[in-house]
């Protein structure tokens, strides 16, 4: 099927669609349990009494489709795994549904499918079911992907944003803002040449390590859209507490800082695709950091702030000694004029 492009026939339910599934998608996903012949996947459920099912879904639209460090396929796999992982779930399986624009190069689709397969195998979380639709040219932008995922949550796991308590500390698992800065530069609008790479990664092994070492973890959230500032605002609101970050402790790579300085952006509001924040009791901080240091994805984890009683909200203690509120953004972050 090389050199071909997607036509309306590939979504028509006939031979073309069968070929697309059999020759492009299934081999790329590389999951022998899925032969594409049934309308559903059957999963074994070997779990102790009281185990709960975690279920999540996420849609992925990104421009450009490929960027340094990842692509839309990697985001689709990692994003859903991370949503499960941050709820304390052990991810079991994914679905992958695609909306393709007529005219999409099949070689491009194959690359994306192979990335999905590679990321899901690396994570040990198979794609077990899926769907493909084709829409007329202009009705979608090349490809939209929706993945859903299921996972197992142990009966004693009680993670919740409302569990944060005064005296807890805030931990972040890695450098902030790299994905957002990478995408902004990869779009080419800004004509900036950088060596930045997206941080897209599956976090479930790191979150499992953290929960093993520190079962008293209050909550975990992956810092995707809206960045660290958005999720910590949500935790502050849910718990009714003040979260205070120390500017000097925030891990931000030099290149991301540079892009933000140039464009007038705040890295705390940029998206991450492989970073989570956790609220843990202060007494557990050393244990937690030691556990996360064992995983390559979270080896730069650090404590960046604390939780205290007071007005619910997120405050940044600046390096100068002043303070400022980190509120939710009114819309997307836009570069400033001067």
């Amino acid at each position, binding site marked *: 099927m090389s050199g071909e492009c997607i036509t309306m026939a590939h979504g028509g339910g006939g031979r073309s669609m069968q070929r697309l599934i059999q020759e492009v998608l299934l081999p790329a996903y590389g999951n022998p349990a899925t032969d594409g012949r049934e309308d559903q996947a059957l999963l074994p459920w070997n779990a102790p009494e009281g185990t709960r099912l975690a279920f999540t879904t996420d849609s992925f639209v990104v421009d450009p489709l490929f960027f340094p460090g990842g692509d839309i396929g990697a985001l689709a796999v990692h994003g859903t795994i991370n949503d499960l992982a941050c709820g304390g779930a052990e991810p079991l399986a994914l679905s992958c549904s695609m909306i393709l624009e007529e005219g999409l190069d099949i070689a491009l689709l194959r690359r994306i499918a192979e990335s999905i397969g590679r990321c899901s195998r690396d994570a040990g979380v198979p794609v077990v079911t899926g769907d493909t639709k084709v829409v007329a040219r202009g009705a979608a932008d090349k490809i939209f992907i929706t993945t859903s995922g299921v996972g197992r949550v142990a009966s004693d796991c009680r993670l919740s944003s409302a569990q944060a308590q005064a005296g807890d500390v805030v931990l972040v698992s890695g450098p902030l803002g790299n994905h957002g800065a990478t995408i902004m530069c990869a779009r080419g609008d*800004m004509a900036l040449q950088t060596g930045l790479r997206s941080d897209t990664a599956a976090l479930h092994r790191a979150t499992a390590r953290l929960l093993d070492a520190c079962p008293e973890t209050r909550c975990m959230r992956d810092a995707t859209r809206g960045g660290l500032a958005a999720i910590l605002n949500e935790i502050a609101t849910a718990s009714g507490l003040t979260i205070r970050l120390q500017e000097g402790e925030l891990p931000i790579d030099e290149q991301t800082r*540079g892009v933000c300085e140039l*464009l007038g952006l705040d890295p705390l509001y940029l998206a991450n695709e492989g970073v989570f924040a956790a609220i843990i009791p202060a007494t557990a901080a050393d244990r937690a950091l030691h556990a996360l240091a064992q995983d390559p994805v979270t080896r730069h984890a650090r404590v960046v702030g604390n939780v205290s009683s007071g007005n619910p909200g997120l405050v940044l203690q600046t390096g100068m000694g002043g303070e400022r509120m980190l509120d939710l953004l*009114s819309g997307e972050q836009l570069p400033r004029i001067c």
Partner: protein
Amino acid sequence: MKYVDEFRDPQLARRALDEIVRLADAVRKLRDRPLQIMEVCGGHTHAIFRYGLQDLIPPSMEFVHGPGCPVCVLPMGRVDDCIALAQTPGVILTTFGDAMRVPGSRGSLLQARAEGADVRMVYSPADALDLARRHPDREVVFFALGFETTMPATALTVLQAEREGIHNFSLFCNHITIIATIKAMLDSPDLRLDGFLGPGHVSMVIGTEPYEFIAQHYRKPMVIAGFEPLDILLSLQMLLEQIHSGRCEVQNQYARVVARRGNDPALDAINSVYELREFFEWRGLGSIDASGVRLRSTYARFDAEQKFSVPSVRIPDPKACQCGEVLKGVIKPWECKQFGTACTPEQPLGALMVSSEGACAAYYRFGKRRSLSEEPATI
């Protein structure tokens, strides 16, 4: 990061602050109200909030956040004109990012884009010219705004378009000038300012000489300041030293960027492309004489206002807005009746809530906690 971290050194900041406190104490004994220092430039307002500097200065002095946010001071009628241009068939309207959200009387460019207008965010007018090269069948209009800081880039882009014979590129010119604006504020009867932090990047273009009248005629001290926290603190210290010793001078703290005579090639480009308008309408401040520029008749073919028909309807500021009083330091942002209720960053009513550099938006976003906690508790 080199050339950045040096200007954010907490220990040096501490030293400057100690000196500021000492001087402010000495000055306070001679006065019955706090010193009001206006930072003219929106970039300074942003930096003051970003680093929390307003919490660090002694209570005997306060910042008054000036009119230097070009996005904030754009009147609604001009935004409406811009949207009309964007909706003209065949037009690609290009603009800086933060101009996208400025509300006109019937929405913003972001909303116009959602409704089908081809509005694109660019980082430089040169990118807009490049779009014109790549789309010879379309008309590319650049929404030019800003003080003298951004004028040279748009002027040079027009000159480049002329050299290349590009006919499908034009400017919707909303550039404004700093000197006329400061003069209008100084002439205002309710003005109570004690000194100015001068705009760093405007001064990089125009130099320090044009400000001399502020010290000589109006007897107000000014220090041209850079945008890093240490720049601002050091400039405050210099201002206080002037006030303490009774001097009124224009000093240049930002000497690593600003030359006394400004930047000749930039000024040449501005002068060859633009001429002063008799007056220009400002959101919050009303009409100010000679405070805006337009394209000279030689470059009329690059002037979107001449090339297309724009409605040019004057829309008065909402009556409830007290932006002008906030801009002049007569009231604080949170003392405006609309602050945080009818006027929020999501639904801005007044100019100063529009851009993140606007004083009200900055207070709302960065300082909400402080202003709320200062209010007496209600039962």
